[in-house]
């Protein structure tokens, strides 16, 4: 059965799109037919992160307005045969996202046999963000270990509990997962950053994974390749762990402890 997962945070710039790209890529690499939808109408950038911006012809709004078919708008990922991207519109107003229209698009995607439908939410709690979460079965809450980000995530969790279709119909609630990004064990150790246990203490939802702060992410974005493709890096491995946990595997938490560089490492430099 298809699962609709919203990737959301409230706050901007915490890593929603980066995480959507790597998470959907990771699911597809494991053989699951996956589509990732950019709900950030007017400020699209999922296609940039996925490296398919030059192939965008039609977008989500065109499909909603029946100006294009889903098959015309879906872009096949350049690495994974199982992954498709439904880009947002750059030129349209976000009010063009109608609830009925989004529902119809999601129903069509399910009918096409997609197992996972990832909705990359815009920042904020406005219409675009609401449309991204309304039909979600599960939510990946992306949070930085920093008070304002945690507060905004708390707010968006409240909105999911109130406004999602599952909440409104009184059914089983949306399953929530916490994804902490830009985590720096060293800064946690120095007391400059909230620890993941602090964040969990406030948000009280199950932890799906921790993505360490890394220069690799910017590099990946600029190249238009999701960070999970950079094999062997901390970030790629952390995202692989997230995908594995999401699919029900047990993986120990990694990248949470700060190892003081040893003397030799300090003398000769790591990198």
């Amino acid at each position: 059965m298809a699962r609709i997962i919203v990737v959301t945070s409230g706050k901007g710039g915490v890593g929603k799109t980066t995480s959507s790209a790597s998470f959907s890529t990771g699911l597809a690499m494991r053989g699951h037919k996956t589509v990732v939808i950019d709900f950030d109408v007017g400020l699209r950038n999922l296609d940039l992160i996925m490296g398919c911006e030059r192939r965008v012809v039609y977008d989500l709004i065109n499909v909603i307005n029946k100006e294009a078919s889903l098959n015309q708008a879906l872009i096949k990922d350049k690495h994974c045969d199982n992954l498709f991207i439904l880009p947002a519109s750059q030129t349209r107003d976000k009010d063009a996202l109608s609830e009925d229209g989004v529902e119809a698009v999601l129903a069509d995607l399910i009918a096409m046999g997609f197992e996972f439908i990832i909705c990359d939410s815009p920042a904020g709690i406005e219409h675009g963000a609401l449309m991204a979460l309304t039909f979600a079965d599960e939510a990946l809450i992306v949070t930085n270990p920093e008070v304002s980000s945690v507060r905004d995530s708390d707010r968006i969790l409240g909105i999911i509990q109130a406004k999602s279709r599952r909440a409104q119909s009184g059914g089983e609630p949306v399953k929530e997962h916490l994804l902490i990004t830009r985590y720096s064990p060293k800064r946690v150790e120095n007391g400059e950053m909230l620890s993941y246990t602090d964040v969990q203490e406030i948000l009280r939802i199950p932890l799906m994974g921790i993505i360490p702060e890394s220069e690799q992410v910017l590099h990946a974005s600029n190249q238009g390749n999701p960070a999970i493709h950079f094999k062997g890096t901390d970030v790629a491995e952390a995202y692989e762990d997230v995908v594995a946990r999401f699919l029900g595997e047990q993986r120990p938490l990694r990248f949470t402890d700060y190892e003081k560089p040893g003397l030799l490492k300090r003398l000769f430099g790591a990198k």
Partner: protein
Amino acid sequence: MSKSPFQKPIEIKISTVVAVSAILHTSDGIALDAALKGMTGGVSDFFEGDLAVIDVGDLAPGSERIDWSGTIALLKKYRLNPVAVRNARPDMVDEIVAHGLSLDTGKRDETSAPPVAAPVVAPAPVAEPVQAAPALIPGANGGANAATVIIDTPVRAGQRIYARGGDLIVMAVVNNGAEIIADGSIHVYNTLNGRALAGASGDASARIFALSMSPELVSIAGVYRTFEDGFPADQARQPAQIRLNGDKLDIQSVNSTTRA
């Protein structure tokens, strides 16, 4: 089950608005101005445009006529936004309505108006009179059981829960930026980090209990207290209760090891 915001141009729903009460003890504009100036310490945005209900019930009968234009302008000067008048005498009604204010015909607050020197005055919520079915019995355990509201999920930033006419019991965490309100008492069997307002329609016997107390703001029967410099350290994050003692809010430990 469709509820798209685009289908209806307007929706009318019952809502409860939190307003402060401005209880007049005099109609003398100069005295009021001086008192407000003293209260706000000259901070121009002290009230940040809070809604205000002007309560004239404490004015001595036969006292001087109220200069409504002057009073409204005065409150606005201190960034209070008067919207209604409470306990108006019948002869005032025409003039009040002519000034665009509503009449609040709700019952008189049971709380005696705290003096200006109190932490800060403001019999708080409920601009709209509350007519809950099981009527609140003031003093009787702080509320009728039938109206008790129990919440099992975390109360998150931006959420507001109001137990009308009864107690509110929260089993999960109340986070910063959340607001829980009850006409009776508030019980939090977890950490209270947000705002808690008990006795919202004036029950001064209401109390606030939490297993880990570190609220942003507490209020009982409109007397409120904020904790700008942090909650008192010896009681913070401990089991505690908060009750109204005269015009002061007392914080008391309910730790079984320290309690008699």
